[in-house]
């Protein structure tokens, strides 16, 4: 899962990025409103964490710009403004969730996972695919009821496949959701990750759709 983190505080931004990376998220940190509006408009993210008090362009304006351009990415507003009136304004501008500073990282992570899961069209937090299950609340995969140990990259790829199980996911799309914006992407690395995942969950689960991408097939 790749997250756009917009936070101008020089201490808080990197701290959140570090905490999210620990939870397997790919994170792009942006520190001003104009860059944030641009990134959200051009890159593909699973969700955005948006501070409201930003230099250059305030958070609500960034959000409105995205919505005006039909960008549907789930947005979680992270702010010190805790009035219900501020929340009303935030949701009216198109936010999907709202978290008040200071916050517990666990809560931010849980809410982000829930946002991404709901955006993919899943009402229930527990996703199943054949022998594989994914608890989106704690971000834990299980195979035949046993916890699965995955690296951050493996987790990102598998969670993408799981969220859109039975659907073909474009290679490029998958690459975008797995690597951070400034990462050096080796085009072969995705195949390496898929190969390792197949060893862990069973080769028949992850199907290669030639010329297009990959698909998680659950019926088998």
């Amino acid at each position, binding site marked *: 899962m790749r997250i756009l983190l917009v936070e101008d*505080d020089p201490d*808080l931004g990197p701290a959140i990025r570090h*905490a999210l990376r620990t939870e397997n998220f790919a994170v792009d940190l942006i520190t001003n409103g104009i860059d944030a509006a641009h990134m959200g408009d051009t890159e593909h993210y699973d969700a955005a964490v948006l501070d409201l008090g930003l230099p250059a362009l305030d958070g609500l304006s960034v959000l409105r710009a995205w919505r005006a351009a039909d960008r549907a990415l789930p947005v979680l507003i992270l702010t010190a403004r805790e009035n219900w009136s501020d929340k*009303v304004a935030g949701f009216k501008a198109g*936010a999907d969730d709202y978290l008040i500073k*200071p916050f517990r990282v666990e809560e931010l992570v849980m809410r982000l996972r829930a946002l991404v899961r709901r955006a993919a069209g899943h009402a229930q937090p527990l996703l199943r695919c054949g022998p594989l299950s994914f608890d989106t609340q704690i971000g834990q995969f299980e195979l035949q009821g046993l916890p699965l140990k995955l690296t951050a990259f493996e987790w990102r790829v598998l969670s993408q496949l799981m969220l859109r199980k039975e659907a073909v996911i474009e290679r490029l799309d998958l690459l975008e959701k797995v690597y951070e914006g400034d990462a050096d992407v080796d085009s072969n690395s995705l195949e390496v990750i898929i190969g390792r995942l197949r060893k862990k969950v069973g080769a028949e689960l992850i199907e290669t759709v030639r010329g297009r991408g990959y698909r998680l097939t659950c019926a088998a």
Partner: protein
Amino acid sequence: MTRLRSFQSLHARMLALSAIATLVALALAGWAIAGVLERFVTEGLDRRLDAEVSLLASTVDREGRIDRARLRQHLGALEGAGGWRWRILAPNQTLSSRDFPALDPGPPHPPLTPGMPEPKRPSLSDAERLHPLEGTREDGSRVHARELTIQSRSGPVTLVAAAPRAVVNRPILGALLPLLIALLALAILLGGASFLQLRIGLRPIRRLRDQVAALRTGARTIIDEDQPSELRPLAVELNALAEDNRSVLATARLSAANLAHALKTPVSALSLQLRDQPEAAAQVARVNATIRHHLARARSQTGNRRSSTALAPAVRDLVEVMFHVHADRMIPIVSDMGEELTVAVDATDLDELIGNVLDNAVRHASSRVTVIARHVPNNPRRIEIDIADDGAGIAKNERSAASRPGTRLDERGDGHGFGLSIVADLVSLYGGRMEMRDAPAGGLLVVLELPASDS
């Protein structure tokens, strides 16, 4: 400078003044009445003494001789009453009753006009020549006398009739007792009347005092300006003072709020960096709790009662927010209220009121939440908002703690009561009422009663 404590009371001062004035007036009245009474009684006595003097005169002939036989004949009438005395002072003899009292020297006799007509029997026309005298008997008691000097051929004859002063004093004293009782009764009556008058007259001052006290404790935010004309300027000034005070307070609270806001981001960063150090993280959590507490307090104490906010749109927006904030709970919120309802509550504060209660309801509901608003029956000035869930409810003994204004969030661990105590603060700030009951569906029913706005 020392001053009697009781005279620092307006009531006591005015009461004392009116008591003194009443007493002085009554003393003057008593003195005047006694004087008039004495004059009447003395005039009555004078007439009797004058009659005696006439009798004495009738025993003196033109030569200045005293007709003793005639005198003896009238002696009974002259000395009949105890202590009455008489004396005839003729040129060649003096006759008098025994122990005739010593008379004080009277005013000089009116000169006997030479060439006056023949002496004749004294008559009423002699009255102006009769003059009063005072004297003392041997036993020290005072006497009142009348004296007449008539001319005889052998010289002036002075006739004196005297009566004990007691004859005058006794009826006066007799009349004075009921008079004093009557005056005393009048004094008590007047005192009571002025006491009542003061109590009723000073009632607006007492009411003003109570209102100022209520202003200080926060039970009211303004003083009634519908006061008697003397007090109205004071009430207006007090309100202006209170308003100044409030704005100073509001500025201070705004600064506190800004400070708290500014602290939130660094505290967030700190708490993230200290995630792996539980003790330090606990300290940061305490800092955070303190910031939240003061921020919420600062916010909940600057209400603007002159606002007017439509209820239904605010509730709609908040219901929308709840769907997002509690997206996974999927609790439907059913609301029922007229579009015309407006409350005299600032829009931000109304959001805070409804938002906190609704948030609490959605958190605890098991299948649904209802919001119903209407005018309080028979009171178009109040609007009642009922927010009910069908969850487990709150135990009765915890309800009062949750809704007590100013309850600190760290007194309740779950943080849920925090919102309700803010609600209680805001409700009391706007002169409303908050009540928690058992909801029909089994959960908690929060009843908010808020002032309706004029429009």
